[in-house]
């Protein structure tokens, strides 16, 4: 069934349609929320739930079909994460001087991380050092494979801005993890 039609049925209260959409997009949205929040499962689940409810309860009008449903839902989720972050003030942007020197994980990483756990830790460290807006583009590109146009749509910024942020994010990572191999 067409996703737009599925969304319309979900909005009307069709639980089968709601479940179908959760099964199609829930896993990806959960991963996105987990990467953006780096928080507890409860926070992640709450954000994903709110995202679906926003889409089902009244967000259909906002979905004009310009982007895919996946991209649009990602954008809704990112906005919710931003609101939560603003509310908590718990994750201020890392100061720029934090990117001036390579840190210890780089030297550890340069000895070729053999295990997936080590790789996961390295990636988590990379994400952790990025300010929120740069973290968003890296996750959308590297893990969700979004094009620049899709990133711009999800983030609510022009495509060129998404590209610039991605370039800067990668530069920050290169400076901080200079020895990563």
């Amino acid at each position: 069934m067409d996703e737009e039609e599925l969304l319309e049925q979900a909005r009307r209260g069709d639980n089968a349609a709601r479940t179908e959409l959760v099964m199609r997009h829930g896993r990806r949205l959960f991963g996105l929320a987990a990467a953006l929040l780096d928080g507890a499962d409860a926070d992640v689940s709450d954000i994903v739930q709110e995202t679906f409810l926003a889409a089902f309860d009244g967000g259909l009008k906002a979905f004009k079909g310009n982007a895919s449903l996946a991209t649009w839902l990602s954008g809704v989720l990112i906005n919710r994460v931003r609101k939560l972050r603003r509310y908590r003030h718990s994750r201020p942007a890392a100061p720029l001087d934090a990117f001036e020197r390579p840190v210890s994980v780089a030297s550890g990483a340069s000895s070729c991380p053999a295990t997936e756990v080590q790789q996961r830790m390295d990636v988590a460290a990379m994400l952790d050092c990025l300010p929120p807006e740069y973290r968003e583009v890296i996750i959308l590109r590297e893990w969700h494979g979004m094009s620049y146009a899709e990133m711009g749509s999800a983030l609510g910024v022009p495509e060129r801005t998404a590209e610039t942020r991605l370039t800067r994010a990668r530069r920050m990572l290169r400076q901080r993890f200079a020895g990563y191999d």
Partner: protein
Amino acid sequence: MVDCENQVRLSAYHDGELLPAERSIVEAHLRDCPSCAAELAAIRRTSGAFAATSPREPSHEQLLQLAQSVRAEASDARMLLRLFRGTAVAAGVLLACALAAGVYLSQRTRAAAHEAMVLDHVATGSQPPTFATDALSDARQSEQQVRLARWIADDLRGRQEER
């Protein structure tokens, strides 16, 4: 290593976002620019690190729980809960206002009674009673009235003793 101005398009090149003509230009440049070649290698290493991992995934139970939590009847229940919470907050505010008004009126009444009693004692020349300083007498207005009454009583008593 000096940064090259062409580095700004390397991400787009790496991500396959360039048109064929632009790609050719970047590729030709990469052959002659070690700085850009190093930058591209760094981008590839970073991308490789992400490609080797994947974002956290929910368990099947979590996914089912999520599907359950967004069912239509669950939405209705949440709406009712929100409505109830809103009503409860409004009722709480009204109750607090009513209590505050009651306390204020009670203080005014007590202060007026104290004042009348002191003036009565002053008029008859007897010793005014000591006022209990209970919680209600903390109100500024009541305290001022009590202090004024005491001052009047002390002053009158002093004049009587002088005579």
